[in-house]
């Protein structure tokens, strides 16, 4: 039995403890905002926060988050109004939108520790998140906007 918190609620899982957190969130808990993209931490679509830090849910076994606190896109802000989410909407970032939850979670984790990131810091933090539609220039602009409150 693995006990953990997901989006502020206590959860207990008695299935395969080696199951990646990604599939536990999606298939067992129904938090489908966290996406599958590669399964091997190459694309960032599955990015969640574990104790506030960005992590790839696809390579994190459930047993590794025992006693820890997981936040998914659904729990980032109760009204969906985290500054990063708002900036994403203001600047019309998404195209297909599939990778955006991972992008937003990664960006929110960056801004939590780096209040006004440089371009190099944005690139460094975000280069693990692939967007096949190619929304990158708007992602950069949205992170800047969220950082400055613009």
């Amino acid at each position, binding site marked *: 039995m693995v006990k953990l918190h997901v989006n502020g609620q206590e959860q207990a899982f008695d*299935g*395969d403890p080696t*199951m*990646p957190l990604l*599939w536990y969130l*999606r*298939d*067992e808990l*129904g*938090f*489908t*905002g*966290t*996406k*599958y*993209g*590669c*399964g*091997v931490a*190459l*694309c960032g*679509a599955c990015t969640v926060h574990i104790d506030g830090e960005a992590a790839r849910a696809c390579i994190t076994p459930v047993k590794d988050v025992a006693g820890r606190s997981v936040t*998914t*896109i*659904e729990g*980032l802000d109760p009204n*969906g109004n985290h500054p990063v*989410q708002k900036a*994403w*909407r203001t600047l*019309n970032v*998404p*195209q*297909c*939108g*599939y*990778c*955006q*939850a991972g992008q*937003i979670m990664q960006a929110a984790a960056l801004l939590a520790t780096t209040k006004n990131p440089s*371009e190099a810091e*944005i*690139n*460094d933090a*975000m*280069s*693990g*998140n*692939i*967007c*096949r*539609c*190619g*929304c*990158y*220039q*708007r*992602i*950069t602009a949205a992170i800047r906007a969220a950082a400055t409150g613009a």
Partner: protein
Amino acid sequence: MTPVHVTIENVSRRGFLKGIIATGGLVVAAEFLPARAALAAYATGAEKMPGGVVTDPHVFVSIDPSGLVTIVAHRAEMGTGSRTSLPMVVAEELDADWSRVRVKQSPGDEKKYGNQNTDGSRSMRHFIQPMRQCGAAARLMLETAAAQRWGVDVAEVQTQNHEVVHKSSGRKLGYGDLAAAASALPTPSPDQIKLKDEASFRYLGKGNVQIVDLFDITTGRAVYGIDAKQPGMKYAAIARPAVLGGKLASYDGTAAMKVPGVEKIVVIEGTPPPAKFQPLGGVAVIARNTWAAIQGRDALKINWDDGPHGAYDSAAYKAQLEETASKPCKVVRNDGDADKALASAAKTVSAEYYIPHLAHASMEPPSATVRVADGKCEAWAAVQSPGNTQEELAQKLGLKREDVTVNVTLLGGGFGRKSKCDFVLEAALLSREMGGAPVKVVWTREDDIQHDYLHTVSLERIDAGLDQQGRVVAWRHRSVAPTIAAIFTADPKHESAGELGMGLIDVPFDIPNLRCENGEAEAHTRIGWFRSVSNIPHGFAVQSFAAELAHAMGRDPKEVLLELIGPPRIVDPRKSQNVEAFPNYGDPFETYPIDTARLRRAVELVADKAEWGRKLPPRHGQGIAVHRSFLSYVATVVEVAVDEKGGLSVPRVDTAIDCGFAANPERIYSQIEGAAVMGLSLARYGEISFKNGRVEQSNFDGFQVIRIDESPPITHVHIVPNGIDVPSSGVGEPGVPPFAPALCNAIFAATGKRIRRLPIGDQLAT
């Protein structure tokens, strides 16, 4: 007379009103036989597509008593914005307040909604006119209902932002008050309908409407194919033959069945090629969750019988393509006598270009959930062509079309991959095997990259001859590439007319002796549509070679490009010899001719905006390319910097697009920005290669795509302004083809190194 069936039903809106408090009550909906009469200022190929065109507002528009307008989106959403932009067209003509409009996704049903195949950059191009007609008809019905209520002539009333106003008295009625009466009216005939003046547009052409899924996307609520969930749903992962036409020889599922959560192993029969959209076959593991299914699949021990394509080897195939291109091939366009002109030319220039297979690698891999029970089938799937998916499911399962429901989710990217419904058919077969339990099939990234309908692989050879004055007097282009037609017919050998017409035989150059040839090539893997299709290799070769000619002449590439294009005129490939057909992307040539004035204007505009020829820092270079595809004209200037070690960066991109009337400029910007990223991905890294019949790459390590740190920091998009009378043309795809040649032309300008083989990979390393 059109039979009319009016029904009043309580429509549940929870599927498309997430997070919004809906007013309750009855929604008045009516069901009419679709009116197909078109109020078109110009002809398109839309009528000839399966399902054709439907414009009846009873099909697309409903209004509840509170005035909430629901508009049906009948095309799939994969990131281009069509799910927003087409309803926006309806709302414009309906004179609706966009904040009181909701969008509802239609299921697959082309008889009811018209063509739904969201592919070929056709959505706005084929449906801006029908959706305008639909919205205008609904507006007239509301006006008529109001006039009847007031007992006045309909000419005395007009709409004004979600209300109908009696002009002389100032009386007003909201759309909600009129919905019931309006819905009972017959659909106005086209000659009764009056479209809005362009000057009064509030949304069309403005770019002020945000995509309807924006909030849901940014909060994780948006539902994609992979997110479907049904009661009692099972999860499946499938081991498929790695080689085209490979068959299952034997398997041992003992270890797979021991994986906790695995419930069943099912063999899926493959279809020998050409298999169209049929599943590849293989062994499916069905489990209680995705993880167990994948674990079980990976534990299968399988022996495959590879068959004849087991020898497919990309290096050997490339040599074969080169050999074919070294000799005369089938002539597919001929003007003058290129061979003779080449033989007598003062100078000749020749080059060969190689463009490998590419994988779509949409961020959401193919995924579908299907339930087949009680003689009915219901699917929840990320498909570009829900109408075709409905037909294919019905055929595969032996059901009537109307007993098959295809619910269309959002697509996490499509790029042409999700036009093929093989993955939906897989889920359907498995549901039947599971006694009617819904089954979700998830393709892993490895599945996606190794079993894709790949972009073709091609060898392009161009020979040109210059006269004493340095004018290009001869052009001979040989294209050799396996064709998409190979998934439909056995061994077609040559590119189809559609593929040849994507930048080969429609080359718009003003050269007296011009010949295009197409060599034989056999397909050893599934070839499919990939964003921009054959325009990628053809455009890369033609536009790279134009710059090579400029270099040979010692002249400016932009000036030579304009000289090759020649004076403003209409180029009609059908007037050349040996052209069997020129489909022009399925649209009438008269509506969408090849207009070199527009091609030239795109070049001039982008050159001006990018400050072509400005002084650049050392090791920087600019490159230019222009290409007409999907009936739009796109020119790109790429600026590169190449450091001493060969490190490549792209500090700036400028792209000019002339896509006729720009219905939603904001989404055109995003498509063109994205096209630069996809163009850079394919140019730098894009390659799927085969060894022993098998794809050598499996995930984003082997098949790399551009990430944020390598992306152009900014792509400036310049839309050529056009009025509503200029037919809207493609947007989703045309941005891609000019990027790679512009990039490689810029690399040449910066370094003197000419890239003729994609991807660039380590070719710049010193």
